[in-house]
């Protein structure tokens, strides 16, 4: 796969340099991106992080009403312990910091270790893990599920909660509620390639799709011939709505997200069907999102996320927020 890059080893650092050059609201310090103003005094901090290769995730969501700082690793590798520590420090104004990131082994080791090392300095941290990918484990193994695109809802909701002066526990509870009420499923059409790797993350036939495949190419639920968009949308929605959500509600937000190469045209074709189907089930869509929100570089495919709202979540979702890739 062709990449516009200089070298695999410089891929992430050059990407980060470009990101902050284009977005003066962001500052780079090694493998940490934070807001230019720094931790807002009196506000609980929120950090996230993960591997590179998922832009706008994770660094692109640093901004007012969203993340305060973000630790970023090599492509598809966790952020280093140092980066996690630095991100937490950057986000801390003394009110404590929520670590809000996807449920992946490497990321957890690093954020956990960072938190333990900082405890000695009196930094208070809590953790909420994104676990929205319903294809990665059954409902009985909810805690084993991976975090994918739906985590941006948790960013938004925790960010809005922190913005109004809520305590660390309250912000943590809001993030946990957002995760608990969000479900995502993806479908993959073509792989991507890690810079420096000798081949793509997986192979798939020229007429095949894989339902439920993960954003790093983790195997999904089935692989079969491509079928009409409406049938794919229906199956994704059926699976999402069949997954049990405590207190599921009649008002939802929907995110139809490109994994990279899938163009907006196709996302809108899917969204059209999803909106029809949700309306048919008596569900009202609030603040839908259609676009590139969490990608795997040049991978083709998409994910659909549903966030089941309650009054609190809906008002937090609608609160003003601003980062380079999302503004409310």
């Amino acid at each position, binding site marked *: 796969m062709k990449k516009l890059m200089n070298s*695999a*080893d410089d891929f992430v650092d050059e990407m980060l340099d470009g990101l902050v050059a284009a977005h003066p609201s962001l500052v780079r310090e*090694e493998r940490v991106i934070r807001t230019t103003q720094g931790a807002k005094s009196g506000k609980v901090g929120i950090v996230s992080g993960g*591997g590179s290769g998922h832009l706008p995730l994770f660094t692109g969501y640093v901004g007012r009403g969203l993340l305060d700082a973000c*630790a970023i*690793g*090599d*492509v*598809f*590798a*966790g*952020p*280093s*312990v*140092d*980066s*996690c520590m630095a991100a937490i420090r950057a986000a801390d104004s003394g009110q404590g910091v929520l670590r809000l990131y996807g449920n992946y*082994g*490497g*990321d957890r*080791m*690093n954020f*956990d*270790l960072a938190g333990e090392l900082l405890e000695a300095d009196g930094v208070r941290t809590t953790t909420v893990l994104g676990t929205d990918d319903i294809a*990665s484990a059954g409902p009985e193994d909810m805690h084993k599920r991976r975090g994918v695109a739906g985590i941006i809802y948790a960013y938004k909701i925790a960010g809005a909660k922190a913005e109004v002066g809520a305590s660390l526990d309250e912000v943590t509870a809001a993030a946990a509620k957002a995760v608990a009420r969000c479900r995502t499923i993806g479908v993959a059409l073509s792989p991507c390639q*890690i810079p*420096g*790797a*000798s*081949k793509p*993350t997986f192979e798939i036939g020229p007429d095949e799709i894989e339902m439920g495949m*993960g954003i*790093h*190419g*983790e*195997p999904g639920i089935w692989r079969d011939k491509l079928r009409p968009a409406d049938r794919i949308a229906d199956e994704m929605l059926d699976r999402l709505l069949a997954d049990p959500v405590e207190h599921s509600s009649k008002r939802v937000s929907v995110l139809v997200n490109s994994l990279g190469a899938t163009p907006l045209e196709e996302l809108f074709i899917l969204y059209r069907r999803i909106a029809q189907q949700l309306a048919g089930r008596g569900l009202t869509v609030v603040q839908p999102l259609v676009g590139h929100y969490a990608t795997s570089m040049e991978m083709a495919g998409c994910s659909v996320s549903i966030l089941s709202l309650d009054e609190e979540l809906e008002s937090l979702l609608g609160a003003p927020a601003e980062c380079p890739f999302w503004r409310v």
Partner: protein
Amino acid sequence: MGLTAHTLRHAVAQAAESARRAEDELNAADGKVGDGDTGVMLRRLFEKLSAAASPDQEDIGAVFQSLGAASASATGSSLGTLVTVSMLTLAKETRGRSELPWGEFGSALQKVRDVMMARGGATLGDKTVVDVLDAVATAIDGLADPREIYARAWLVTVNTLDAFRDKPNRLGRARMFAEKSIGLDDPGMLAFSRLLEGLEPQNVR
């Protein structure tokens, strides 16, 4: 006799060279069950570790500490983070000493295995780097002759790879590929064997 700051630095340089040579092979192994980056991660990590092992330290604990610090800043991959915690553990074990006696080597590795399991959540039998480390730590327990240690370590490493090849991976990214992973070496175990293989036994004295 034991592991000194000098021997350790030399071993790290050799490991960096081994990681460079094994980069493609490890990427390919990880490509079959994971995301294909074990090799590139390890090569980059050991480049940085090799640069971080400063030549004027006599305190072996201090050398392990700088290796741990370099690793903590250089990598966040699963395997890389396990290297970080290993180095930090060995630093704690050897702080202020000029050598780690060979007779204590096995028990030090057992501590490393334990922190790896605590940090990563793996259990024995999951087919990860932890299994080969456990086998080595157990096999060399109490041995004091570095040549014998190396020979035993190499033997059980090969045997462990053989023994696990036809089992499914139960942890990490490879877990998702449990069935597919049967018949394949775990990339972390394979990485361990390549690094060990590259250590010149005559240096281990």
